């Protein structure tokens, strides 16, 4: 750990990694909260995996894979949103199909590109230590986009997440905001992929918000707390993984899982003690 903080002052790649982690934490705190209260974790997972399709195509065409990821994520979000709204049926099947088909497209294109093995692993499991300045710039743009969006439309997004029908009756453009929300989730997923890769994304998206929702009572409170938890997890994961040279993404996720477990256990323990006191009092 101490080695990490010493190296942080000297190594530019560590500073970039740290900045990437913080940038990812901000959007994961904000959008993760929506994902948790709206219970669309599976949907977000589908978008995350479908993103490989876009990355594969971009890689094949020798473009920045992150741009391909953004395009694929937005297309996937709009597709799922359109199916969800149009039919009102459970969109499980569509999400599952998108999930697998997106990955299949990605694998096919990557296999057609010479020398693919190295990059595939970093797409799937992330490689925050390799994050480039260009990637960071894109992450900053995505962060600003998501934050501005939520600041402008916070009320509408809550209303749509809470009670769609009432929102619609009040003249809120429910379909538009639903799609906007899914697009923001998609952009968040792309940001998080830089840190933990597309397979582990779903944990980083949901766990900080899930932990925060055990303590904060308002949506904005959960967002703030989840962002802080995200920062602690990404910085902590980076620091822990540095000396023993462990994969940073996996370490961050493991830390998130442990924190969630500990928090849930502590909560239920407190609850039990309270109940016992109440019974003894009565």
């Amino acid at each position: 750990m101490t080695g990490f903080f010493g190296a942080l002052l000297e190594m530019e790649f560590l500073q970039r990694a740290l900045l990437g982690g913080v940038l990812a934490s901000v959007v994961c705190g904000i959008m993760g909260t929506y994902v948790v209260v709206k219970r669309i974790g599976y949907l977000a997972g589908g978008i995350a995996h479908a993103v490989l399709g876009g990355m594969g195509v971009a890689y094949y065409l020798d473009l920045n894979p992150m741009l391909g990821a953004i395009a694929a994520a937005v297309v996937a979000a709009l597709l799922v949103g359109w199916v969800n709204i149009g039919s009102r049926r459970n969109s499980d099947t569509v999400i599952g199909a998108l999930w697998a088909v997106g990955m299949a497209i990605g694998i096919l294109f990557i296999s057609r590109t010479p020398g693919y093995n190295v990059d595939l692993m970093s797409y799937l499991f992330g490689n925050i230590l390799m994050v480039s300045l260009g990637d960071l710039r894109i992450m900053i743009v995505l962060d600003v986009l998501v934050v501005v969006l939520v600041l402008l439309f916070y009320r509408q997004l809550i209303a749509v997440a809470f009670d769609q029908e009432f929102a619609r009756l009040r003249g809120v453009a429910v379909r538009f905001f639903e799609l906007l929300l899914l697009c923001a989730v998609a952009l968040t997923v792309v940001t998080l992929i830089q840190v933990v890769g597309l397979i582990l994304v779903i944990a980083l998206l949901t766990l900080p918000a899930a932990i925060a929702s055990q303590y904060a009572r308002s949506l904005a409170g959960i967002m703030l707390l989840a962002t802080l938890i995200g920062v602690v997890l990404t910085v902590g994961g980076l620091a822990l993984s540095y000396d023993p040279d462990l994969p940073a993404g996996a370490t961050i996720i493991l830390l998130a899982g442990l924190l969630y477990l500990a928090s849930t256990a502590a909560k239920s323990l407190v609850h039990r003690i309270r109940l016992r006191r109440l019974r003894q009092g009565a």
Partner: protein
Amino acid sequence: MTPDIELHRVSFSYGGPLVLQDVTLAVEHGEFLGVVGPNGSGKTTLLRLILGLLEPTAGRLRVLGRAPDDARKLVGYVPQFASFERDFPISVKEMVLQGRLGRTRLLGRYSGADHAAAQRAMAQVHVEHASSQPIGGLSGGQVQRALVARALVTEPKILVLDEPTSNIDLRAEDNIFNLLEQLRESMTIVVVSHDIGFMTQYVSRVACLNRTLVCHTTSEVTGQVVEELYGAPVHMIQHPHKISTSGPIQ
């Protein structure tokens, strides 16, 4: 004067058999109409038509003299509990403020006027003390009253309630209807409920629905009417009938 809500031979189907058939009904300004009927009788469908969430398959429907979509902003809606998650992290005030969404600015935060309106509405239904509490911590009756407050901040001319008493105990039920009785001085009210016995003490008129309008009466709902409506003898508890002021339906 044109009625606030006017249905002329309205029928509706979700694609299969008719859910509503040939319903003709006029609700005058200031009326307090109770719509009763068994499950699947088309009560909620009737409300959704009035709100403009559905379009009639046949017939004509006007709300405040306009198409229901256009009148929507003047109709306050109190949904059933089932339409949202009780553990959603939202305070009573935040929920009530959502009623201002159609009237306030598009971007940013709620205005001072919005907050004032929410405060007034919460005071009117006596939930102002719970203003900053999350809705998950409230009793069923409190949530119901908060939902009425959310409908009131829209400054409605018509208030529409879907099963407002289905999740609360008898005392809270009494409170809700007392509240509605006060509100009827300033607006037209339509309440849908399967709970005939209790509601008929308060409303000015009852419409009994079972696909068609079986009856509409200002007099006491008798056991015979109920039997006709539900298609089976129903155990009914006698209750004092308080008001019957409005004239018969045309």
